[in-house]
């Protein structure tokens, strides 16, 4: 296989991946079994009374009243929601999933809260540990493989 053929195949696969990204972006809101955050951002009043599953960043909590405010990102900008029956312990900056009924335009009565990150720093823990994972992969890989600089391909190390 020549460099050209290899290049054409790689470009073709990258184009295919991009096409999948566009397809997913176009179709996801219809496939998601609940009103999608993009839909809620565009038409806040259209889904009152429906069940929703949303991911959001906690911006405020009120433990006395069992409520919290979360910020939900969407393609049409971020919007804030008040979550009632918020029974989880989360700091500001934490990330939660909220399943519940949309009782007003921007209010959810939660049936279940899942804490994804307890705080903003929990996200940094995740990224930090992930970077260690990526470094481990690179070290392990290049212990057994090397780049042949004549052909620009991975080849087995002779001593590997």
């Amino acid at each position: 296989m020549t460099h050209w053929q290899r290049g054409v195949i790689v470009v073709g696969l990258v184009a295919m991946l991009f096409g999948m990204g566009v397809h997913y972006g176009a179709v996801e809101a219809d496939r998601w079994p609940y009103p999608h955050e993009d839909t809620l951002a565009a038409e806040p009043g259209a889904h009152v009374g429906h069940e929703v599953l949303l991911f959001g960043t906690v911006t405020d909590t009120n433990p006395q009243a069992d409520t919290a405010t979360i910020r939900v990102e969407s393609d049409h900008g971020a919007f804030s929601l008040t979550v009632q029956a918020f029974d989880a312990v989360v700091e500001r900056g934490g990330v939660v999933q909220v399943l519940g009924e949309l009782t007003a335009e921007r209010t959810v009565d939660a049936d279940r809260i899942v804490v994804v990150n307890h705080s903003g720093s929990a996200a940094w823990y995740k990224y930090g540990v992930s970077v260690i994972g990526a470094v481990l992969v690179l070290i392990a890989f290049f212990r057994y493989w090397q780049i042949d600089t004549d052909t620009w391909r991975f080849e087995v190390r002779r001593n590997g």
Partner: protein
Amino acid sequence: MAELLSTVLLTYSVFTIGSWWIDGLDRRWIVVAMGGAAIPDLVKVDLLVDARVIEQTVGLPFSYTPVASIGGVAVVAGIVAMLFGTQWRRQAYAILFAAGGFSLLIDGARVYADGYANFYLYPVWIRPPTPELFVSADPAVLGVALIVGASVFSVDRWTATG
């Protein structure tokens, strides 16, 4: 998703255990599997270039999510396999795809508020039920992965020298 270190350690463990019975699955392929397990994590490119920036640039809807799906893993594994020398390419593809799929299975076991995971079987639009084993920032996941990884590593070295 689980952090990458846990995913990589669990992938190392499963493929190393597999290598005890499968001829040809040696350490140079186990490290390729560890790389394949990282494919779905490429979805985190979103932190560098937000999908909305791409949508605004090209004027089309766009999501990185397919990279963390079985369809996306099949394509990315193809791209990475093309970087290997000709004689390694088929086996590299098979290992990368299997490991990427395993990584999706781990990720599909995390908690979702309604009990169903995301569309990781895309292009099939199904949300498989999740056993709800962990939430993504849970340090206990790393604890388990470290214990499993260290145990498998020890047994592997012991059987190799014994």
